[in-house]
């Protein structure tokens, strides 16, 4: 059944590529494939498997598969979202060519994500991890005739490559320490190796997590990745692929706890969240605002994981997917309807009621109003941080600012436009785009309620390999929030929303105000700028490194070509010359060989 789960999207991808010249057919096949594999999900059996490939002597190559509640969670999210994304693409990608390539790459990504979600050993994880990087690269650069898209794709690939290499190095260390690469084996006997051996592995794994989840100081690639089509952003760069890093953090948590490196996750997650929130407030690109918001949320997940609030993290992990995908749907619709990437030039969403209502739902969820997902996460997470004032105040600040920037985003695109053509653009959006958004809104509401079934979704046994460390993680994280908490959260969210409303609807030139606040050195602490530039340096440095590496390989290739040219010169000539060359070679070989065999050399 597990193999079938991977096989169905593969067959759908093949069918989408091979079948038909009808442009609409490819997408429909892809949607059907995604739905079929979703239907297979309930039949997937739990457990720890090893699918052998081949073995030589005592050396076996195989694919380790682990299906546990945590894995089911990611599998479920991926499978549930995929049909909606593909259905949305039916409308979004309609006018553009190369449908085959798009759907084939999307399904390839889905396969990679499913493989990642059920990987049970580091080898499987690495294979899936690489395929994720590759499909991300291909899909960001999908519109390859755009110079910016190509650059963004390369940047994303290069930055993530750092993580890939770190992962590989970490795997080598763990292999040396434990002699096995199975998660279950390593994480359940984590104490078998001395912590001092494992520090480098833990740090390298954190680097891999940070690059994949676009966290400080590697966060720079994600906003650029918005050059890809909107369904790609909705699928890869908000809901599934970027969460691979966070998911790995959950899987490797015993290692981080054992080496006491969780605080690194906590600090870097918090820093990323704060930076991303600030960036989101001054950004004007429709999709990049949401991209910054994604970085912020991933940062919050890492904060939750780093402080042991694994249930809060898992809850956020579930719900964030749905409203984030929905926001990207709306952003894509806005860009499609207005033909502009700038938030200030795409008003008029209100004219399409279904789109407007579903977008509003997503915005409210993100802002943290009761009874939607953002609220539950905030209250669940706050339970952990009430003792840590710095984190607590940072979280509070973030929740106000989140409400502020997302309402800014929403109010600007739903403003009544002066140009009536924009309204026409919104009204005439393809049905598949609007209704997959509506479907996603239903999922958003439904997923909010998963807060009450978390114990069922992630029972204690889900974290079986955590052993006694697990006890540490299970403290009151699903207690229902009290009234005072609810009131406080709502006040915070409303404050942000109101601030945003006054700033943007009342016509105050708040755009200037905000950019003044966040861009000028007088009014804002230079720490932020310093950190931002440092992060940029790291990310840009990676790209620079890529140039050097390219130059190295290029020169290597040139050298090889040059020596090849010399050899080729020798390889052109008449039989006489060949005969001489050959005779000399044979004599030399015989003389040398004879001397060698006789022991003279």
């Amino acid at each position, binding site marked *: 059944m597990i193999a079938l789960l991977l096989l169905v999207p593969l067959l759908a991808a093949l069918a989408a590529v091979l079948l038909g010249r009808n442009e609409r057919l490819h997408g429909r096949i892809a949607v059907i494939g995604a739905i079929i594999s979703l239907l297979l999900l309930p039949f997937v059996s739990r457990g720890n498997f090893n699918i052998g490939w081949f073995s030589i*002597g005592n*050396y076996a190559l195989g694919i380790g598969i682990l299906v546990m509640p945590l894995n089911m969670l990611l599998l479920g999210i991926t499978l549930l979202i995929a049909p909606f994304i593909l259905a949305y693409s039916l409308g979004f990608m309609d006018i553009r060519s190369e449908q085959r390539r798009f759907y084939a790459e999307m399904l390839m990504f889905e396969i990679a994500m499913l493989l990642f979600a059920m990987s049970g050993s580091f080898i499987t994880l690495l294979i899936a991890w690489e395929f994720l990087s590759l499909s991300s690269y291909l899909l960001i650069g999908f519109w390859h005739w755009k110079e910016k898209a190509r650059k963004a794709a390369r940047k994303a690939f290069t930055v993530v490559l750092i993580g890939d290499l770190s992962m590989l190095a970490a795997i080598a260390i763990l292999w040396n320490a434990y002699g096995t690469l199975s998660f279950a084996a390593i994480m359940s006997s984590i104490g078998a190796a001395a912590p001092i051996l494992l520090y480098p592995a833990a740090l390298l794994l954190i680097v891999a997590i940070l690059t994949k989840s676009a966290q400080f100081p590697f966060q720079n690639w994600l906003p650029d990745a918005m050059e890809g089509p909107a369904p790609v952003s909705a699928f890869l760069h908000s809901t599934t692929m970027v969460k691979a890093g966070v998911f790995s953090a959950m899987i490797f948590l015993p290692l981080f706890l054992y080496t006491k490196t969780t605080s690194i996750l906590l600090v870097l997650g918090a820093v990323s969240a704060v930076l991303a929130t600030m960036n989101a407030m001054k950004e004007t690109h429709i999709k990049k605002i949401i991209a910054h918001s994604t970085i912020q949320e991933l940062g919050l997940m890492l904060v939750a994981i780093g402080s042991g609030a694994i249930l809060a993290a898992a809850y956020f992990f579930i719900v964030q997917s749905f409203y984030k995908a929905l926001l990207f749907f709306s952003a894509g619709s806005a860009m499609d309807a207005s033909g502009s990437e700038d938030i200030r030039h795409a008003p008029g969403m209100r004219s399409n009621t279904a789109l407007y209502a579903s977008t509003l739902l997503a915005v409210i969820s993100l802002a943290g109003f009761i009874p939607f997902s953002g609220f539950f996460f905030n209250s669940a997470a706050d339970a952990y941080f009430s003792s840590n004032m710095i984190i607590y105040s940072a979280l509070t600040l973030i929740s106000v600012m989140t409400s502020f920037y997302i309402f800014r985003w929403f109010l600007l695109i739903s403003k009544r436009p002066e140009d009536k053509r924009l309204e026409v653009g919104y009204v005439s959006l393809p049905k598949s785009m609007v209704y997959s958004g509506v479907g996603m809104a239903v999922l958003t509401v439904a997923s909010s309620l998963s807060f009450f079934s978390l114990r069922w979704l992630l029972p204690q046994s889900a974290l079986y390999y955590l052993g006694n460390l697990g006890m540490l993680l299970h403290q009151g994280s699903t207690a229902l929030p009290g009234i005072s908490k609810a009131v406080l959260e709502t006040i915070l969210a409303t404050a942000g929303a109101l601030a945003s409303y006054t700033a943007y609807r009342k016509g105050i030139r708040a755009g200037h105000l905000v950019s003044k606040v966040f861009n000028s050195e007088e009014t804002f602490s230079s720490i932020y700028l310093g950190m931002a530039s440092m992060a940029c340096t790291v990310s840009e440095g990676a790209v620079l490194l890529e140039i050097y590496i390219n130059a190295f390989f290029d020169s290597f290739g040139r050298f*090889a*070509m040059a020596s*090849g040219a010399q050899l080729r010169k020798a390889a052109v000539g008449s039989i006489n010359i060949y005969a001489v060359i050959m005779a000399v070679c*044979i004599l030399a070989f015989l003389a040398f060989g*004879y001397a060698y065999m006789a022991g003279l050399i």
Partner: protein
Amino acid sequence: MMGYIAPLGDAFVLLIGAVMSIAVIAGAAITFYRRKRAHLALSVIVYAASALLILYMMLAGGTAQMSIGGFMLINPFSLFFSLIFTVGILLVNIIAYAYSKDYNEFALLASFALIGMYMVAFSLSLVTIFIGLELAVLPAVFMILLSRKSLEAAAKLFVAASLSTALLSFAIVLTYGGSGTVALEQYSGAEILGFAALLFIVSLGFEASIFPFNVLLPDVYSGPPAHITSMLGGVNKKVGFAALMQVLILGFIAYRQAFILIAVLSVFTMFYGNLVALMQDNIKRMMAYSSISQAGYIMIGIAVANAAGISASLFQIFAHMFIFIGVLAIIAWLEGHGKHKINDIEGLHSENRFLSFSLALLLLSLAGLPFTTGFVGKFLIFLSSINSGMVWLAFLGIINSIISIYYYARVIAKVYTGRRVSRGIKVDRGIAAVVLTCVIITLVFGIWPLPLMHITGNAAAALFPAAGAA
């Protein structure tokens, strides 16, 4: 002791002989009447029948072996090679039927050559190997001559073959002098035998395209039309390896230095093949050098000189034969449309998707793409050399794999960039069938290599107990 392969063991061997005689005699008759189609039907039926016979003997026989008259031996090793030769010649015949003007003559010569190849595969004596090699190589010279334009290539092959023959006979004479026998058994002692081993390496190295004895071969490969090249590089070269493995492993396993020399030569062969292939702008010539570099990888397995290494080499030989013939079938199709240079195939994907995809896949398999036979073969080879302590050899091999990606990717990039106005160039059904077969085999045994590894393992093991028992 020698068990019988199957209750019908003798009969089956006789059947192969009978089947081959039909091929030759009926082929000669058909050639006289110049019936192209009939000849193709005859060849396909005869070769397919004998391939099935061999496959049956292989699967039913397990690891058993049987000798015929003391000069021929049937064991998993010989069956493995005879299967490869039969299937290879079968595929080459189909390509040649589509593009050769003198198909009748070609098919007849190919059936002569196949008999020689069988002799090499089944041989238990140096003399049989000698005769078999002659019988396998000489028809190739005439095949090249069939196309009339490539006189130079034929001359070069003839020169190389005669030099090889001379050295081979010298080596056999020295072996007889040192050991008092021409039977293929384990030799030891006598310094003169060590020299004979070197001469065997040189003379069989011509056939197997080992550097530096292969300097004539690229011209030989790239001169004649592609269907003949597919025969030379896909099948004929494997005869050299069959002979080399038998002589060195069965006869000279005691002379460890000879295997070190093979390792050194394999490094030179890989580098020579890959570096010169980088510079080629003619795609057939590039494939010629690429097949030289592949010969280098195969030699690593021989240099390891244990069952794992030989098994890996056999796997790679199997993989390379199908990949090479598949690529050459595509090249034959390209040549049929007047495309010879790498630049000519720009935008091929808009003209024929299936062949473009197959070309890309087969080339990537040569470069070592996982889930193809090319990857598994190289993986096994490098693993065997690492396991036997020759890490440096595996390291140099991996470096060469990286270099080779450069020129394979160049071709693939050309295929998939640019567009042509014309759509859908027709493909001969035979060519499509050959390419499809090669692609399927490359993928199936890449994804599920165990059955093939079992067969090559048996074949390799057959070389070693024999050496130990003698």
